[in-house]
Structure formats: C-alpha cells, structure tokens
C-alpha cells in the first residue's frame, strides 16, 4: 500500500501538469472565440446602451486590483507550500480565495446593476456577448474558488504532500491564466469604452 501511493506521487509531477497545460490551451481557444464573438458584436447595440453608458471606472479598478493581488498571494501560497510551511500556505491561499470572492461579489454587483437598468444580456447582441464573456470568466473564477477551498482543507488534513503540492501548482497556473484573461477583458472590453 505504501508502494502504491508512492507510485502515484512519482507520477503527478509530470503527466498531470502536461495534461493541465493542454487543458489551459483548450480553454484559451474557448476564451479566444468568445473574445472574437465579442469583437464581431462590439457595436451591435440595437438602440440599447453601450459600454460607455454602463461601465464604472471605480468598480473596474477595484475588481482588477483584487484579482491582480490574488495572483500575488497565490504565488506566495505556492511558494510557502513548496517550503513545507503549511500554515503560511493555508493563510495565503485563504487570502487568495477572499480576494477572488471579493472580485466575484463586485462583478455580480455590477452585472445585476446592469440588469436592473434594463441592460441585461437579452437587451442587445452587444450585451449578450459582454455578459457571456465576463460571465464565463466569472464561472472560471468560481471553479477556482471551489478548488481553492478544497485545497485549503487538504493542506490542513494532509499537509504539503506531493499530490497536494501538484494541485496547488496547477491551481496557481489556472489562477494566473484567469488573470491574463481578465487583463484582456479589461483592455479589450472595458478600456475602449471608458477612454
């Protein structure tokens, strides 16, 4: 039995990480196509509001600050776990989840505000593409949060065991990836409207 789990541990550093990179590439194509669709529909307002009428620079700044900071904290969590500082890793990962949760709350607040102002996803092609793009990113962040909380529990139960480390490594890749996607959302969706 000991041999069994050691074997599993010997495997995780390599194959699973390659597999995860492949998944990220697939996901990047998915986001790329949604971005392309947004670009195609970026002026299809159908007499509805445009981004310039809706977006709020302050909210955007807070959201971006939270998410970018969380990329730093997850890197610190990963670093701490690599050095087998379990408590620190749990703390940094907890902060990451809080920051990610804060980002999601702000996003929900923003989107529900749009819906209240009769600018929901069914209003125009532009808003359908906007809600889908931002919503897909938000769903990914949600999945990352579920993953993060699970890992906090595993860190507390199992410590910085090799499989847990590998998962943390992949979560951190995922999180940085979502950060990059957000930077694209920020600069391709929000900024042109706010400039």
């Amino acid at each position: 039995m000991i041999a069994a789990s050691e074997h599993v541990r010997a495997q995780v550093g390599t194959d699973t990480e390659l597999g995860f990179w492949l998944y990220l590439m697939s996901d990047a194509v998915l986001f790329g196509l949604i971005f392309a669709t947004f670009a195609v529909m970026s002026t299809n307002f159908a007499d509805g509001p445009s981004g310039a009428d809706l977006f709020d620079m302050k909210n955007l700044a807070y959201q971006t600050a939270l998410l970018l900071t969380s990329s730093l904290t997850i890197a610190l969590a990963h670093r701490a776990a690599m050095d087998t500082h379990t408590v620190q890793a749990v703390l940094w990962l907890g902060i990451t989840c809080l920051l990610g949760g804060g980002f999601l709350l702000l996003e929900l607040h923003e989107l529900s505000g749009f819906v209240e102002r009769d600018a929901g996803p069914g209003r125009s092609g532009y808003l359908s593409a906007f809600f889908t793009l931002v919503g897909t990113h938000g769903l990914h962040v949600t999945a990352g949060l579920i993953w993060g909380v699970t890992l906090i529990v595993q860190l507390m139960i199992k410590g910085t065991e090799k499989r847990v480390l590998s998962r943390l490594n992949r979560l951190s890749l995922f999180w940085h990836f979502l950060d990059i996607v957000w930077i694209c959302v920020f600069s391709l969706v929000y900024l042109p409207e706010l400039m």
Partner: protein
Amino acid sequence: MTDDLSFLFGRLGLDALPFYSWVALSGALVTVAGGVGFLAIVTWLGKWRELWTGWLTTVDHKRLGIMYIVLALVMLVRGFVDAIMMRLQQAMALNSEGYLPPEHFEQIFSSHGTIMIFFMAMPFMTGLMNFVIPLQIGARDVAFPTLNAISFWLTAAGAGLMLISLVIGKFSTAGWTGYPPYSGVEFTPGVGVDYWIWSILISGVGTTMTGINFVVTILRKRAPGMLLMRMPLFTWTALCSSILIIFAFPALTVSCAMLALDRTLGMHFFTNDSGGNVMNYMNLFWIWGHPEVYILILPAFGIFSEVVATFSSKRLFGYPSLVYATAVISILSFTVWLHHFFTMGAGANVNAVFGIATMVIAVPTGVKVFDWLFTMFRGRIRFEPPMLFTIGFMCLFVIGGMTGVLLAIPPINYSTHNTTFLVAHFHNMIIPGVLFGYLAGYMYWFPKALGFRLNRTWGVRAFWLWLIGFLLAFMPLYFLGLMGMPRRMESYSNPEWQPLLLIAFAGAFLILLGIVSLAIQLAISIRDRQTLADATGDPWDGRTLEWSMPSPPPPWNFDEVPVVETRDAFHEAKLTGRPLSPADEDEAVMVPDNTIVGPCMGLAGFCVGFGAVWFMWWLALAGLALAIATLIARSFAENTEQEIDLGPKARAT
C-alpha cells in the same frame, strides 16, 4: 398546483410522449424495449455483479475501449434505421406525402447526422484508440485512467439523451448542423434543438478530455526506445487527431453554448433582430466542424496504414511522408472552414483563399494514397476482411476526393451547394474513409481484444454488401445533385428524380444486409470461438507491439515492458529471432482500482442535460452538484491502485 408541477417538471408533460404518430410511437417502443430487454437479460443471466465490477466501474483502457465500440455499434444501427427511413421516404414521395409527415422527416435527418458523427463515429474512433494506443506504444495504461472513464461516461450520457429524445419529447428538426435563425427559439420553440445542443455539449466535454488524455499518453507513456519516428502510424494519427480535438472542440462548445443561451436566456447572439449575427454561428460551428472531419478520418488513415502493411507482409512504404502528410493535414484542417458556406457571401477573394487552401489539402492526402499503393506493390497480399475494406476504401475514397476538389471551387460550389451532390460527397468521404477504416480496425484488433478471430466468410460478405450498397446508394445522389435536387427534400414533383432515388433505396437495402452480415459474423464467431481462438496472440503476422502479448492482454498489458530499437519492433524480433529485450523497471507494476467516479459523472451529465432541456432546473443543479461533489470526493481518495505481483519469472529477468 400548476406552479408546483412546473417547478418539478418544467415544461415536461404527458404530451411529450409520442402518441402523435405511429412511426414515432414504434421508434419509442423499440428504444424502450431495447433498454428493458438488456436489463432483463442481465438480470436473467444473474450478471449484474459482473457487469458492475467488470465493466461499468472499470478504468481499464481496454474495457473502456470495448464499451465505446459497443456504444458505437448500437448507435450505428439506430443511425442506419434513420437513413433507410429517409431513403424509403424519398423513394416514395414523388408528388405525394410519402409515409412520413414533414416534421418527422426533419427530425430523422437531424438525428441521423447527429448520431452518426457524434455517437457512432466518435465513440468508434475513441474506442479503437483506447484499446490499441497503450498496447502499441508499450504502455501499461493511459496517462489518466479515471479521466478516461469519465470521458466514456459523459459520451454515454450524451448518447442517452439522444436516445431518450425518441421517447420523451421530440428531436431537433434543424439538421445536424443546427443553423440559426431556424434553430433559434423564435422558429423552433420546442425541446428538439435543446436535446441536440445538450447531448453534443455533454459528450463534447468528454471528447475534449479524451484528447488531452491521449496527447499525454502518447507523449509521455511510450516504452523506452519508442521514439516519435518509430511509433506505429495509428499512434501518429491518433496523436494528431487528439491535438485537433484539444484545439477544435472549444469552438463546438462555444457555438452550441451560445445557441443555448439564445434559446434559454433570450440572448441575441444569432437572432435576426436585436443585434444578433447569424453568420457568426456558421463560422464558429465550422471552425470546429472542419477539423472534426480530420479528427475522424486521420485515425482511419492510421488503421489503413497498419492493415495495408500487415496484410501485404511488407514494411509500410514512405513512413516519414505519411507522418508529415498527417501533420500537414492537421494544420491545414484549421484553414478551410469557410468552404462549408461559400454561398454565404464573404466575397470573392475570401472564397478564393479558402478554395485554394481546400485544394491544397488534397496534396498530402494524395501522398498517403500513393504510399498505401506502393506498400501493396510487390507485397504478398492476404485478402482478409480488414484488407478488403482497405482496398475498397482506396478505390472509393479517390472518387470522394475528386468531388471534394470540385466542391472546393467556389463557382462550382454555388451551383452544387446544398444539393444531394454535397450529400454524396461527404458520405463518400465518411463511409469508405471513416467507417470502412473503423470496421477494418474492428475486425483487425477483434482477436486481440477478445481472444478469437471473427468469421472470415461473413466478413467478406459484409464487405461486398457495404461496398456495392454504398455505390448504389450514393452514386445516384451525385447525379441527382447535378440535376438540381436539393438535400433534405421530404417530397418532390420531378419525375426524373424517382428512378435514381429508387436505386439509392436499393443501395441502402444492401447496406442493411451488410449490417445484418456484421451481426451474423459476430454471433457465429462467438458461437465458434473455440475453433477461431487466437492462441498465439499474433493471428495476422503483425508488426507492432500489441501483437507481442497474449490475446486478450492482461490488465497490466505487458509483463515486461519491451525496449524498442526499431520501427515495427515486434516484426523485427520475429524476423531476427531475437526477442524484444525487457526494460529495466524500478517501479512496481500498478493497476488502478475500479471506481464509481465515471458512472457518477455520467449520471451528473445526464441530469444536467435533461434538466436543461426540460427546464427542470432543480435537476440540472442537482447534476452539477453531483459532479462537483464527485470530483472533490475523488480528490480525497488515497491508494487508488493495486500493486501486481508478476511472480518470480518476471522478477528474475
């Protein structure tokens, strides 16, 4: 009261049952009887425990492969019933209604295409890859066995949704491509298009994970010395096909998900009004759709390459050129999607670019055909059924390729677009190209999988029936297309068309006999399994590693992982009399335990799909929660593998 029920059942009511037409009702009854009959037989034989532990919860790539192929064969029968019903309708429907009401005819051509592509061809391909690839590269398993089981069960969930649409509710009438705005909620408000969307989305997730799994398996799990340019051609084509899956399937997910958002949440991606852009759907769909053609056919090319070398008793001619041709096709497959809608009006220059790119693809494909021909040249050819299918493919595929180049010329395409000429062309590629390849692979590797060969006589009969049936069924459609007959016609008034449609029906009938022959072949081979037994593990004088082990292989595949020193290493070993030398392995031989993760994820996927189709949101959420809970629980599991003690013989070496 109604509020309570609509919470529970969404828009599902008694009117969803198919009492509106006898054809639909009998289809539903056959489906239900098939399901109930299967359960009854398992119960009667007392095989539940064996079914559960041996198959349903397995993570063994070989057993998953066999289950994929069983699924594919069942869906082949279902898809073929649709096909012959369409042929019968068109043979009858001169100046009349035929026997099918229009809406029913539309459902049938939609489900025929959907089933054949997503639930026949894809599982058949994935099944062959699952069974063969680890054996060919000298691996004990795929990289991610549990993920592999999840992929299978998600595919099965999609197929389940597809089948249940025959019993509860109706299927899509929008064709297998589901073009908006017709497939939008304004023109097609029922559940049909939603069934189509969700069965594709759910199985598509499974397929994406299969792609990832096989890229990692092929890149990381090869035996020592199995360099990339020593890999068998089927492994090469499976690798390229898996890479295509990873990059192409997101486009299918995006197009179908956006259509679902339009239909369910009232968005405006593909609507005529409110800023929708219908043409964006065609682009997104075919950015997936054209690579998909190559996802399906590349592994078939790989099978033909294996079969033609084995049964010509010769080394494969031009191995490097076949590898490069495969890679070039993979890349070019992403550059031609617009040829599916030249008539959309993208402009002459855009059409010209895509037309030329399409013609360029014919070049590496032609290289392959010549390589296979030169492999046969001066070989000692054995006309076993897999080889017959391969030769039949080479003859017929060239015709399909030629008509493909014709269709690639935009001005010609304008006059043949959406005619039966197109239908004939893509069936010409998919039946001889894809299906003949998979059937050849099925007959080629069957003895390896189950330990006995398939009956030769019935295999030969099946081949001739398929070949002649195909020619009769589809050659007339080329002429009908040139005579101006549009595809998907439920009735027509041109008497010149009917004789050709009658010939096409006769062809479909011969294909029916071909399918019956396949069934008879399977049945009598099981009956005669003692005489057909494959004692050596190498019934065809094979060349690649999978033939070096007993049939069927043990769960850990290789007692000793071999060191590979050349291409066709097993054949080389037989030739020189020097057995393959075993690799030094410091790790214990591990076999993963059974797990219910796969069936749980399949159930979850089915609930999500069924709930979303019928607006039973509690069910969809429950499915989602089940999926998340399963994954979390699995991540806490310890010791999911068992060590295998291969005894002193293996240890001593």
